[in-house]
């Protein structure tokens, strides 16, 4: 009985598609410089069927296809930009993990620096106003606060 169960489980193990982990040895290019560029490019391309993974880390078949495509283009002599353009032409800008700073996405890239300018301006204005403020004295305390102060000092 247990033998049967075991046999079934082994069959199941074989039947369940084992995830192939990210870059496979047979994908790796012979030229280390090219392979290095391929890895670098892969890190900036999104696996289209995954959730927020680059094709360099993804186990999906589609990611493997894309990795092979990138390497194919590199071997054909494309520059990095040409490879990226080629992939974007095919799959749209959705595939880029780093959105291009163009059109409405300029807003995205400018958001941080603009906010920093704004916040630094407001912050500095606040600091200036504090520097110019009249120093407080005990006479400024309200009656209620004086009572509290007396109580605290007693303790």
């Amino acid at each position, binding site marked *: 009985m247990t033998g049967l169960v075991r046999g079934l489980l082994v069959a199941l*193990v074989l039947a369940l598609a084992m995830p192939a*982990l990210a*870059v496979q040895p047979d994908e790796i290019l012979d030229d280390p410089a090219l392979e290095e560029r391929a890895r670098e490019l892969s890190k*900036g391309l999104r696996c289209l069927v995954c959730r927020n993974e680059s094709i360099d880390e993804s186990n999906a078949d589609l990611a493997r296809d894309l990795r092979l495509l990138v390497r194919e283009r590199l071997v054909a002599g494309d520059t990095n930009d040409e490879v990226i353009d080629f992939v974007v032409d095919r799959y749209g*800008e959705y595939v880029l993990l780093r959105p291009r700073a163009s059109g409405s996405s300029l807003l995205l*890239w400018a958001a941080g620096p603009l906010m920093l300018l704004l916040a630094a301006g407001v912050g500095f204005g606040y600091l200036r106003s504090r520097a110019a403020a009249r120093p407080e004295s005990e006479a400024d305390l309200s009656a209620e606060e004086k009572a509290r102060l007396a109580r605290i000092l007693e303790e």
Partner: protein
Amino acid sequence: MITELGHFALILAFMVAIVQAVVPLIGAEKRWTSWMAVAEPAATLQFLLTAFAFAALTWAFVTSDFSLRLVVLNSHSDKPMLYKITGTWGNHEGSMLLWVLIVTLFGAMAAWFGGNLPPGLRARVLAVQSAVGVAFFAFILFTSNPFLRLAVPPMNGQDLNPLLQDPGLAFHPPFLYLGYVGLSICFSFAVAALIEGRVDAAWGRWVRPWTLAAWVFLTVGIALGSWWAYYELGWGGFWFWDPVENASFMPWLLSAALLHSAIVVEKREALKSWTILLAILAFGFSLIGTFIVRSGLLTSVHAFANDPERGVFILMIMAFFTGGALLLFALRAGAMEAKGVFAPVSREGALVANNVLLAVACFVVFVGTMWPVVAEMAFDRKLTVGPPFFDMAFSPFMVLLGLLLPFGSMMPWKRGQVSRAWAPLKGALILSVALAALVWAIQTERSALGPLGVFMGAWIASGAIIDLWGRTGRGPNRLGRLMRLPRADWGKATAHFGMGVTFFAICGLVAWKQDDIRVVQLGEPFDVAGFTITLDDVQQVQGPNYISTMGFATLEKNGRELTQLRPEKRIYPVAQMATTEAAIDYRFLRDVYVVIGDPQDNGGWVVRTYVKPFANWMWAGTILMSLGGLLSLSDRRFRVAAGAARRVPQGGVPAE
């Protein structure tokens, strides 16, 4: 039976929460002491009832009660006991119950330790906290009830997602929730202060321990999650800028800002309205995080229970609390006048700079996280904002923050001089530049990241030490005085030192990691980055609820055996999922991380090897940061405040 009692307790807790949200608030307004006094026992009762409901659900998981829908969907009788217990919160409904349990826990703690608060403020804080509870009780009972039964119970369950069958699940979500929900107390304090129209130094002192606690929990929770991802996902990544990670990171950034700005309120009675706003936003971002995880608005590896109805409910909770509080803020913020007078170059000024940088960094993360949705809805562009964007857009703010940190922490209050803060730091700068140059000279690849990390780490860490040493003054016996410094000083130095370590570790790990992918024949050694690895054997091993393909590998260096490694691939037949279990040799200066892949036609196996320098330093840095928070939390002035609570007789403090 126990299940029904648990369900009943949860409904009762809901009722108590409604009472606690309304009665003390009216009492505080009308100054009716008896009405205000309802809050304290109600908070305790609410917590006990919710704790009972949670225990009942845990019991159902422990005993594998498959008449419960939730247990069927997320458990299996073969599952190890640890994961039966942790499986209670490894799903949407159970994790919401944990969430609301922590809301009531914090409410109860505010009631127990809030003896030194003015009665009006305490009643209002507890009422607001309970109102948050009401919303989440309603959410659980009406959309995500964990206690639903099945008419026909199946023989066994469908098992928990195998990725979650890990000790990480026992600690990561509870810590994270303690952090998220801990911010709800700061939120309650902020709203209560707005209702009262009064924020003073005492308010700053009351709110700071809660912020510190929430921040420590968030730090630990995020670090645990990062470590979990590091060893579980199979390629040693530790941070992916995933929307859900960002959702936890944004409250972390804001609570870090809040705990610094609350110092200014406490010591100098300034930055009041900004601190209130931060407290509201920090919890607001916790709610946004909840919304992102539960609604499926953004695709993420964490998202579970993607259900629009639930998403809309949480959106409403978020809109009500954040929107309501912000409206209140707009009406009342004008009443909060700053008192302290100070020059721009001062500790106050430095803390303002800290807040500006942390808040803007949080804003960048927020915009990046939400941009895909905005771009699709507003500009009809379907695009992705991934790690390369965040690395580029976020990191400069952290570098700037790190550069300013040693200066700022040395600045005196009220009025400082750049030249005077600069003098003791010269040594730190020379040391940091020298170390960075040395590293630049000896590293093989000419990347700037490693030296930058060395510089930042050395600068921040040595700055923290110099700051602490500078607190001991002049003259003899400085060492003795060092030991007697307030714990808050030690906490500050420890946390800043930890941040330096984390800075360095992240840069070092990213700059100098090495990896190797190859097909390996059994018994044939191969070299990676100075290590020799031999895959001796691969065997099928039967686990309790999985089958493992286990590699038996030997790790050697210079002909000396360091350790045996057991990388695994596991198949979970019930859940029909496979996971990889990396084998990691943790050492002080580096980790060696080995993963076994697929068998090849020619008899070999794919083996991936990663050498990760300074990985442990990253976790050590976050532990130091949390430790710093804990040290500050145990500072005498907070303990004295807590002790004073016991000495003040009940009703001895006149209403204000």
